[in-house]
């Protein structure tokens, strides 16, 4: 046995976490690179998961901690990929560690600095619905548990440094370049949400009581901006009627992306159930085009929502949403089964389910690594059926949503697949 082979995993969401744990578990050295200050990814932002209704962070946090504690995993959070050279078995990688202005070793994450920081900015983790300080931790379960100063908003008053008992604040910190040598690379960059402002008729960002699904996940989450209370964003009134709209910018030729995001029918059903669990009397409507409940146990989950929780599924694409002076909403829609134009009035909250799209940053990443993207911006694979995790470059693999739309279990299984292919290729290269 020579030196321990190593793998770079790009993206610290559930797919990247699973790939890292699989490889580290069998003895590979893993570098897990994440551009934001914490690992956890999108799954960390979700309130619950379908169809089991597990609390998302509760099942994810132990895995995040396992990554942190694992002797074979080195977390590179708040880092950027700069350069990749070489071939399978011998990639030379340059990584830029962005300055946190806080010493990761000294910081205990106590948060006293944030209490004193005078600058308040929207918290990205809460989809900008809540606020954080200029020195912050994105979420309570952040890994690593370390504060970060966002330089854009910091006014350099120095209060944080003054109150930090650990002496961890270091405003002089500089960007740091690291050189790594790895045998294989796994890409797991996840997704972004389509911005539905383009669809003017739905009034997103114009009407306060229109949210996107990811915003709603934070809104209804106990650790979210309003402590998980089911209220209207505009005025705090307890809603009586909530509607979900599917395929906002997906499956469309006019707006957004032509593909189906694969998860929206199910998470809308889940969010409907969460609402019913908070307040059984709230009427919940889901406007859909085709109800896609194709995964294991999904149709049964929808049946439960329909029959036990009386969630109303309406087949039809809403044409327009109007706001009345009391900030309640009216949805005008085409009921495709009755072929009538109808309206649903007195809606307190509309949740848009936007297309989930490949990340903008994929382009840069693809250029650096030399792999190809498809026409939508997903990473291209060698063969969609028989080489679903091999990219166009040997030794570089891909898994999770950035390969194609998929839910958490499919991402987890595929993350293990990418780990297997990386291990297989390294076994052959090193022989």
């Amino acid at each position, binding site marked *: 046995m020579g030196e321990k082979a190593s793998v770079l995993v790009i993206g610290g969401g559930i797919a990247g976490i699973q790939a890292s744990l*699989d490889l580290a*578990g*069998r003895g590979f050295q893993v570098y897990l690179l994440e551009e934001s200050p914490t690992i956890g990814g999108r799954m960390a932002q979700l309130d619950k998961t379908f169809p*089991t209704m597990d609390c998302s962070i509760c*099942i*994810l946090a*132990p895995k995040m*901690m*396992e990554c942190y*504690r694992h002797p074979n995993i080195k977390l590179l959070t708040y880092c950027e990929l700069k350069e990749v050279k070489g071939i399978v078995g011998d990639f030379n990688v340059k990584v830029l560690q962005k300055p946190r202005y806080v010493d990761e070793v000294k910081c*205990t*994450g106590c948060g006293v600095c944030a209490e004193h920081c005078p600058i308040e900015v929207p918290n990205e983790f809460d989809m900008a619905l809540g606020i954080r300080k200029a020195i912050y931790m994105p979420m*309570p*379960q*952040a*890994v690593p*548990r370390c504060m970060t100063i966002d330089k854009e908003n910091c006014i350099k008053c120095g209060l944080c440094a003054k109150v930090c008992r650990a002496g961890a604040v270091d405003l002089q910190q500089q960007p740091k370049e690291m050189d790594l040598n790895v045998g294989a690379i796994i890409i797991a960059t996840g997704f972004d949400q389509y911005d539905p402002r383009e669809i003017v008729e739905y009034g997103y960002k114009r009407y306060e009581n229109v949210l996107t699904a990811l915003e709603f996940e934070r809104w209804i989450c*106990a*650790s979210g901006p309003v*402590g*998980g209370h089911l209220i209207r964003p505009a005025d705090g009134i307890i809603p009586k009627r909530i509607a979900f709209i599917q395929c906002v910018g997906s*499956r469309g030729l006019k707006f957004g992306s*032509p*593909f*189906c995001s694969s998860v929206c029918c199910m998470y809308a059903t889940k969010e409907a159930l969460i609402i019913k669990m908070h307040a059984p009397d709230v009427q919940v409507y889901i406007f859909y085009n*085709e*109800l*896609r409940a*194709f*995964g*294991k*146990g999904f*149709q*049964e989950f929808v049946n439960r929502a329909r029959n036990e929780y009386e969630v109303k599924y309406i087949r039809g694409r809403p044409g327009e949403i109007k706001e009345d002076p009391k900030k309640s909403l009216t949805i005008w829609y085409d009921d495709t*089964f009755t*072929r009538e134009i109808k309206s649903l009035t007195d809606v307190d909250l509309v949740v848009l389910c936007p297309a989930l799209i490949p990340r903008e940053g994929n382009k840069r990443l693809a250029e650096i690594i030399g792999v190809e993207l498809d026409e*939508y911006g*997903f990473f291209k694979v060698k*063969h*969609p*059926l*028989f080489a*679903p*995790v091999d990219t166009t470059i040997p030794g570089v693999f891909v898994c999770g949503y950035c390969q*194609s*739309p998929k839910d*958490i*279990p*499919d991402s*987890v*299984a*595929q993350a*293990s*697949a990418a*780990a*297997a*292919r990386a*291990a*297989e290729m390294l076994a*052959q290269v090193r022989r």
Partner: protein
Amino acid sequence: MAQQKEKPRVGVFVCHCGINIGGFVNVPQVVRYARTLPNVVHAEENIYTCSAEGIASIKEAIKEHDLNRVVVASCTPRTHEPLFRGACADAGLNPYLFELANIREHCSWVHMREPDKATEKAKDLVRMAVARVSLLEPQEEPEIDVMPTALVIGGGISGMTSALCLAGQGFKVYLVERKPELGGMLKKIYRLYPTGEEASRVIGDYVNAVMGHKNIVVLTSANIKDVKGYIGNFEVTVLKEGEEIKLKIGTIIVATGAIEFKPVGLYGYGRYDRVLTQVELEEILKGGKSAIDKRFFKLQRVVMIQCVGSREERPPRAYCSRICCMVAIKNAMIIKEWYPDSDVYVVYQDMQTYGKEYEEYHRRAREAGIRFVSYTKGSPPEVTALPNGRLKVVVYHALLGIRRELDCDLVVLSTPLIPYEDAKELSKMLKVPLGQDGFFFEAHVKLRPIDFATDGIYVCGTAHSPKDVGESVSQALGVASRAAIPMAVKRLRAEAITSVVDESLCSGCGTCIRICPYGAIQKDERGIAKVIEVMCKGCGTCGASCPERAISMRHFKDEQIIAQIHAILRRVAA
């Protein structure tokens, strides 16, 4: 075990879990209360005990207060016990000197409307945990060697993919297939969607690669007869053409696939020759256009009906079979290509053309002239025979609101993939569960989709649930990682919590041997029960059934449980 008993020094850590607990239970009050309990020398509260800070705090307190027992009052041991045990171990404490009091699922979440009572109950739970932890004993996890050999059950695309990937990583693989040839379901299929490749060609390449690999032993016409043992050390008996082959195996992969549902009695299936399932159609398509012409003379109109026998109100076939919409599109386009003048209809409820490519696939089909007719569950289409031998499909088009009568030459029913009937036997042999739909049931739907709860056994492909080739291959590669982990590590730690027989009390009646679901108890040469520790899962069934009370459970001794009961009764009595 004759360690001198040191006096317990218990540390209690009460978690707010953000507001999950702290929003309803008065955590500071619980902490103050914990300090008054016997043996407790330290108690503190944490916003999140599971955070890096919380873990660091536990480790520090163990050192600072010389703790020899730890109680965390937070959430469920199912997700968090390994983490907290790990923290104890990191600080030099035997991880079994730890106890979780679940004051979230068992308390704050179910008593949200009664915060005062919830706080009292949290105190009760902490008192019980402290009483128990004080009596806990250190345990050691025995180490197991892992045989670096995998058994893959099922020689379809999933099984072959797993076998090749594991073999490519350097492990020895036995691939067992009950049919005389490898290939599985894809042998029946003509072309694959969305790429349009011929399945037989692809399968041929796979079979050649598998047969030619020096690390793979292929056993066809072979069935699994018996499985004994445990992760790393399974003893598997394979029956091949009347001969028993004994294999020593480290990990097992279930890739047994699924079959299509035969919809006897539905839409004239079984009554009319011109009503086929999609797989039956594929088998004819494999013979080319001439095979179709021979059987149906010429296809002028074909109607495909979706969701036949799937998405039913009740299990076992309440599920959507995931692949049928694409299969129908694919076969519809082949027919349209061969018979450009024909009409091909797909009668559907919801087109499940999910993901990156299938929406586009659906669009291409519409452009090619395939007609899609929507029906609702409440008014399914009807199929009847015409006097000239052709068929008539009557369907209410739910989107247009009109009744359509379609004379046609062929009706193709899209039926779901269903589990093999004998999956039940294999599940019993392997001691892994099936779900209510009859497919193999994984350890956790969300985060352990291809593991079983039983260590060392994994599942992939359509044995798990209906899925297409790309998804099956993804899972098959996935299990090639999961199964490789213990085999690469070579040594594992087993369960420490097992049953123990008090030899002086055992009468040798054999009740425990009969009742043990894991086959982990045998009689020794004296006729006394003996537990094979690495096979024991610590379920306690034997202990509960032993008439002589000769069996106790490590970590769950009577005195430890009775102490808990006394602790809870203390308040009731007062």
